[in-house]
């Protein structure tokens, strides 16, 4: 067991998979010589060489397109999109090509691709470098999406993504890169599609994702001081979605609050709310409450960005509304 930052966990995750499988290649902007703009890929070039760790031009369509073509011809590429906002630059390749190729060809094309990306707000980067875009991918059949919230999960979910035969997008909340966590020694491999209950309590279910997980935990701690026991579920995997863990929790608590960093409309929590309303309706003892960023681009100034992204206070308010 060692304490690692999330940032260090990224490099360890990539190294673990490249070490294991010589068909794993890694490409992206500034990932090799510079070690990544967030310093998440330091040491990989030295360890695996310039053939397998490739700097690319600023050509997101070429990066993701090349990853797709390489996967069609025997590699297991890992592509980095420096900021998740850049999915908009290469969305055709992601949404029209990678997501659909297997289905359109009736299974002829297998695409073991991982796209990893630094996502979300909290670092004052403004509207074009702060978005939580995981719900974009969630809306496209053919893409799997995971959002690790701890260093250990970063390695385990990433390994599962690399070993999965389908395209998986690994969304890394960049505000968490400096966060630390205990990481077991040796190889770590997790499974896609499994949520984790990170705190148990019988009064309310709080579903959170990515950078919202530590906030939800903090909120649960404060609620406990007031005698409210919250079940906190780290959703971890949007596709496949672990519905059972969530509905099981709601069956016990009777209350559901989702905490989403994405803007309001069509966030992942809306899908979960819909499923719970359908499948656990009679367990509900109060309204389902979604705590999200307002339906706005994220502003840059500290005060404004902090007002936009769900805070611990807003989560507590949401829980109280659900329990009222």
């Amino acid at each position, binding site marked *: 067991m060692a304490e690692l930052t999330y940032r260090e966990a990224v490099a360890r995750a990539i190294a673990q998979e490249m070490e294991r499988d010589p068909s794993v*290649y890694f490409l992206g902007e500034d990932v090799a010589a510079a070690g990544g703009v967030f310093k998440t890929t330091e040491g990989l070039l030295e360890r695996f060489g310039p*053939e*397998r760790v490739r700097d*690319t*031009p600023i*050509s997101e*369509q*070429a*990066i*993701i*397109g*090349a*990853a*797709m*073509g*390489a*996967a*069609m*011809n*025997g*590699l297991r*590429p890992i592509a980095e999109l420096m900021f998740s906002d850049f999915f908009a630059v290469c969305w*055709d*390749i992601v949404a*029209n*090509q990678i997501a659909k*190729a*297997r*289905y*359109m*060809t*009736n*299974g*002829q*094309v*297998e695409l073991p691709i991982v796209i990893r990306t630094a996502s979300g707000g909290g670092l004052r980067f403004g509207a074009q470098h702060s978005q939580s875009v995981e719900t974009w991918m969630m809306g496209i*059949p*053919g893409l799997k999406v995971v959002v690790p919230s701890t260093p250990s999960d970063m390695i385990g979910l990433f390994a599962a993504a690399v070993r*999965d*035969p*389908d395209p998986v997008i690994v969304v890394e909340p960049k505000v968490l890169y400096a966060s630390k966590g205990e990481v077991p020694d040796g190889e770590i491999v997790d499974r896609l*599609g499994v949520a984790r209950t990170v705190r148990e309590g019988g009064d309310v279910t709080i579903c959170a994702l990515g950078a919202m997980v530590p906030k939800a935990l903090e909120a649960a701690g404060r609620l406990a001081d007031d005698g409210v026991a919250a079940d906190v579920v780290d959703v971890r995997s949007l*596709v*496949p*979605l*672990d*519905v*059972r863990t969530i509905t099981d929790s709601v069956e016990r608590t009777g209350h559901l609050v989702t905490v989403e960093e994405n803007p309001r409309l069509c966030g992942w929590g809306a899908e979960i709310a819909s*499923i719970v309303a359908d499948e656990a309706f009679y367990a509900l003892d109060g309204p389902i409450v979604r705590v999200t960023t307002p339906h706005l681009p994220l502003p840059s100034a500290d005060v404004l960005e902090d007002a936009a992204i769900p805070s611990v206070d807003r989560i507590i308010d949401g829980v109280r509304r659900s329990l009222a």
Partner: protein
Amino acid sequence: MVEEMVDTAQGADLDTRLSIYRMMQEGRMFEERARDLFLEGLVKGTSHLGIGQEAIAAGFAASLDPDDLVFCTYRGHVHTLLRGAPMAALMAELLGRATGICGGKGGSMHLTDVAHGAMGSYAIVGAHMPIAAGAAWAAQTRGTGQVTVCFFGDGTTNIGTFHEALNLAAVWKLPVVFVCENNLYMEYTAIGDVTAVEHPAADRAAAYGLESILIDGNDADAVHAVAVRTVAQARDGEGPSLVEAVTYRHGGHSRADPGKYRPAEEVEEWLSRDPIPMYRERLLAAGAEEAALNDIDRDVLEAVDRATQEAREAPFPDPETLENELWADGGSAWRN
């Protein structure tokens, strides 16, 4: 325009040229039949025919090895067929049958036969350019010796992926040949009206440090010669090429388009330069037996008839297959 083009005809042997002739006829007769079936209401949706452009697909097909990879566009029936995809399965795909090459999930714009190196027909203009580069990257790093050929239209030269893919292929010296089938129109608009240079691909080759290659795309010998040269260059580790082959589609952009925006005299001139009769005359002059050419014509027509019959008689897909093959486990589950 033709006189500006480099004469690259090297004179392949007669057997190769006869096989190129056969391939052009396969493409032509297959697509004429597809058109008839569309008019009969059996091919649904849309279809984009390459009638008139067959010399490019055939000239390149004759230069490739079995392991090589081809990427093409929604105007990709002929490229897929000439890569070796079974004709009946292609026809069945157009007719939405269970025996279709994609089980009825692809349709006219997405014909794919990975087993034969036909790596897909891409219906978003330009998308396949970087994908082809990626396939070539894998060939390069794995040392497979494969060459990737990526066919695209003149309209693609104005979309961003063209630039991104060519730059990456040139920087990484990838074994890929990009082939622009310049049929003078991007959909309904003359390419010259919307492009800053006269030759949309060839004039831009210098931007990537590549040779400017402009050929008569209706001259199957010229296409084959340049294919042999550029494919060999890629295979030898000498990097990518960008070929502009000027041609003309005899019909409109798609089934919805009668192509009325094209001047009658222009259409007439290009119809008189139909690559198949031109090639037939050249082969006769080169000593081919007329009977041999007639045999090819008859064989191909019979093959198209058989494929059509087989496709017509094939069952429609079982609705149970709707939810198959989204994921590698064969299913489409997104939750537990």
